[in-house]
């Protein structure tokens, strides 16, 4: 499944750095921005996540909730947040979804790294077999 403009966004229940949430319930009557990054502790994303934290009031002013996503687990996101604060001046002040693979294959196909490591690819296949 490829995501297209006009499609209903996939719904899923996930762990985030701000606790467990169900995506559509979390959006509620707001707008939402979901932005994915390939991996924690990578340089470009470090600058992006810091800047997004700085810009968050502008999203709030427009009634837009912000949420980040990568395949890494929540405890890894939390460790990375300290680096982001130190180097960019702003720690993420929005939830980061951890390890979405098992929850929403369609989002994962859209957002995961192009060439997953073989071990991760094998794990993905296993999880997909369980989910679909």
């Amino acid at each position: 499944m490829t995501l297209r403009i006009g499609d209903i966004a996939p719904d899923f229940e996930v762990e985030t750095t701000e606790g467990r949430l169900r995506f559509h319930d979390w959006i509620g009557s707001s707008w939402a921005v979901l932005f994915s990054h390939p991996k924690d502790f990578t340089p470009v994303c470090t600058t992006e996540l810091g800047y997004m934290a700085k810009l968050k009031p502008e999203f709030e002013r427009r009634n837009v909730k912000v949420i980040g996503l990568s395949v890494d687990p929540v405890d890894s996101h939390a460790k990375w947040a300290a680096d982001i604060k130190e180097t960019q001046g702003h720690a993420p002040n929005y939830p980061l979804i951890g390890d979405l693979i098992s929850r929403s294959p369609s989002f994962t196909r859209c957002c995961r790294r192009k060439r997953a490591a073989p071990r991760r690819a094998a794990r993905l296949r296993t999880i997909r077999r369980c989910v679909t």
Partner: protein
Amino acid sequence: MRNVIVIGPDKKIKLIIAYPMTTGRNFDEVLRVIDSLQLTAKHRVATPVNWKQGEDVIIAGSVSDEEAKKIYPQGWKAPRPYLRIVPQPK
């Protein structure tokens, strides 16, 4: 991959932008697009190139000239019949 997805209160996807690994995103552009998405969800208008909040907008093609006269009694600029420019609705 590095993607940005904007979702509306109706849970529908409104925007998808994909970036390669080596190019960081421009989140100010995402805010600009959200201003356009929210405006055009509320009013039957479209936003032109590089539009920013407060600038003139284009009357949507789905609005006939007869309808447009009711909505914009003060009229509009039309350098071409298909390009009808009005101030941003409040």
